[in-house]
């Protein structure tokens, strides 16, 4: 067995990226994710990689676009206001069918807001934050180990589908330290990047990376192709964790840090004999629609816990069985507004006791 390390979530993410073969990082510092560029700036030059602290967030996302167009694994990371600045570049990457990892360790908003844990960027992440009607792959780790594992998965899915991928976290998963068991990266048999602009060499076909389609019907066909890929994502790449759903009379759902806190609340409920389960989306896009539908065929009540005023709850409502009731416990972000397991347990009791 590999040695168990004791590391911060942000460091685990950076370690996972390097292990997955990422050798290029472009970013601009911002709390609470600065451990990621710090780690990369130290480690990448040692292994022949390249770390660039760009002049801005906009520059760094476009550097990622350029590196990805050359066929290498590359990433950027930032936090909410910085991710807003990157949206134009993300849209161009989506339109150009370029893979690449974008990490958002969220802070609270809107505007400059604060640096506290927040999940208020859910909509921006899963609905296509930039212009033009696209989606990116969004993964939500809830532990330090997952910061490592899901970063590797994000690179793989992104390369496989040629869709940008995002890790969506916050200061809870970024700043928390836990045991990490690092493991070697194994390439799942990804196709070669024959589309990359790597010099024409002996090839006949010229590779062109672009998101501009002016020909008659070209852009519509391009969009339909992208959306067919999103459909396949929903079919094949959904990931979620279900805890004691079999006999549940109330399902708690939450992602990332809120799911972590909710796990203890669910355990508290089980300890007093309440039949409560947890459904934790790991892929926020593609959203586990079928898992919600199936679980709510037998359990008609869902409590959605989020560190915002209610965002994922909309996708939950679209996914559940038509007779299921969906309740929201939304905690908008800010200093001291992180819910405790005890508070979530109170909410569980409230909605559980209403079952006659």
């Amino acid at each position, binding site marked *: 067995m590999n040695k*168990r390390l*004791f590391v911060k979530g942000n460091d685990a993410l950076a370690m996972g990226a390097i292990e997955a073969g990422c050798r290029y990082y472009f970013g601009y510092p911002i709390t*609470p994710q600065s451990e990621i560029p710090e780690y990369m700036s130290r480690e990448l030059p040692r292994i022949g990689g390249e770390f660039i602290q760009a002049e801005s967030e906009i520059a760094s996302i476009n550097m990622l676009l350029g590196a990805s167009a050359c066929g290498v694994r590359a990433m950027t990371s930032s936090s909410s206001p910085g991710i807003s600045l990157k949206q134009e570049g993300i849209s161009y990457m989506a339109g150009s069918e370029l893979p690449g990892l974008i990490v958002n360790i969220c802070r609270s908003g809107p505007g400059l807001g*604060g*640096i*506290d*844990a927040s999940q208020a960027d859910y909509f921006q992440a899963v609905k296509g934050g930039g212009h033009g009607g696209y989606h990116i792959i969004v993964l939500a780790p809830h532990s330090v180990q997952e910061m490592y594992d899901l970063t590797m998965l994000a690179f793989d899915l992104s390369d496989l589908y040629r869709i940008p991928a995002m890790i969506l976290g916050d*200061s*809870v998963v970024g*700043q*928390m*330290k*836990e*045991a990490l068991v690092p493991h070697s990266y194994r390439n799942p048999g990804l196709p070669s990047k024959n589309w990359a602009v790597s010099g024409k060499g002996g090839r006949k076909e010229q590779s062109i990376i672009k998101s501009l389609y002016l020909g008659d019907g070209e852009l519509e066909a391009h969009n339909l192709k992208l959306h067919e890929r999103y459909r396949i994502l929903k079919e094949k790449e959904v990931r979620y964790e279900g805890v004691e759903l079999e006999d549940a009379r109330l399902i708690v759902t939450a992602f990332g840090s809120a799911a*972590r*806190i*909710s*796990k*203890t*609340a669910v*355990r508290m409920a089980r300890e007093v004999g309440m039949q409560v389960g947890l459904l934790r989306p790991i892929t926020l896009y593609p959203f586990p629609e079928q898992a919600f539908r199936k679980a709510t065929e037998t359990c008609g009540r869902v409590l959605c816990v989020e560190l915002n005023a209610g965002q994922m709850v909309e996708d939950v409502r679209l996914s559940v069985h038509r007779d299921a009731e969906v309740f929201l416990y939304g905690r908008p972000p800010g*200093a001291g507004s*992180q819910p*405790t*397991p*005890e*508070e979530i347990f109170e909410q569980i009791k409230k909605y559980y006791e209403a079952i006659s």
Partner: protein
Amino acid sequence: MNYEAFMAGYGGQGVLVAGNLLSMAAIIEEKNVSYFPAYGVEKRGGAATCTVVISDEEVGSPVIGSPGAGLLFNQLSMDKYFHRIRKGGFCLINSSLIDGEENREDIEILRLPANQLALETGDARLVNMVSLGAYVAHTGAVSLESLKEALKEVLPERNHGFIPLNKEAIDRGAAYAMTGTEKSRAQR
């Protein structure tokens, strides 16, 4: 078993180092552990808190509203967090800096003159080690040996020369907890 230790003091008292050390000791014992520092706009001399959860099972929430144990290093933390400790839990109070007879009948209390014991050991900055030694001796969350072994993992290499002094501080805190204690037993 499940141990939750909430530690609070002001910046400079070594609260976060203490949390790291306790967590590393749990890692050495192959237990599951989460360490979560209060994260905000912090400044020197401001409040410093962290929560350590040690468990044989999967660790759920890294943040706890009513922790099973509190290590309160200064008066501000006492005023803010003493009432939050779970019924049946344990509180270590740094009696060097926390005055008054504030009491609770529903938890165990250990009043530890941590600053005084630290000074007697040789350095005022050993307050955190004295306190951890006492906490570990009282609760058995980890062993004193693991705690000492963790020092070389947690302290930066340039400070490894101070490890013997830190070990001594841990032992002094532990000895105090085992003998000269002032306790109020929980009524069950």
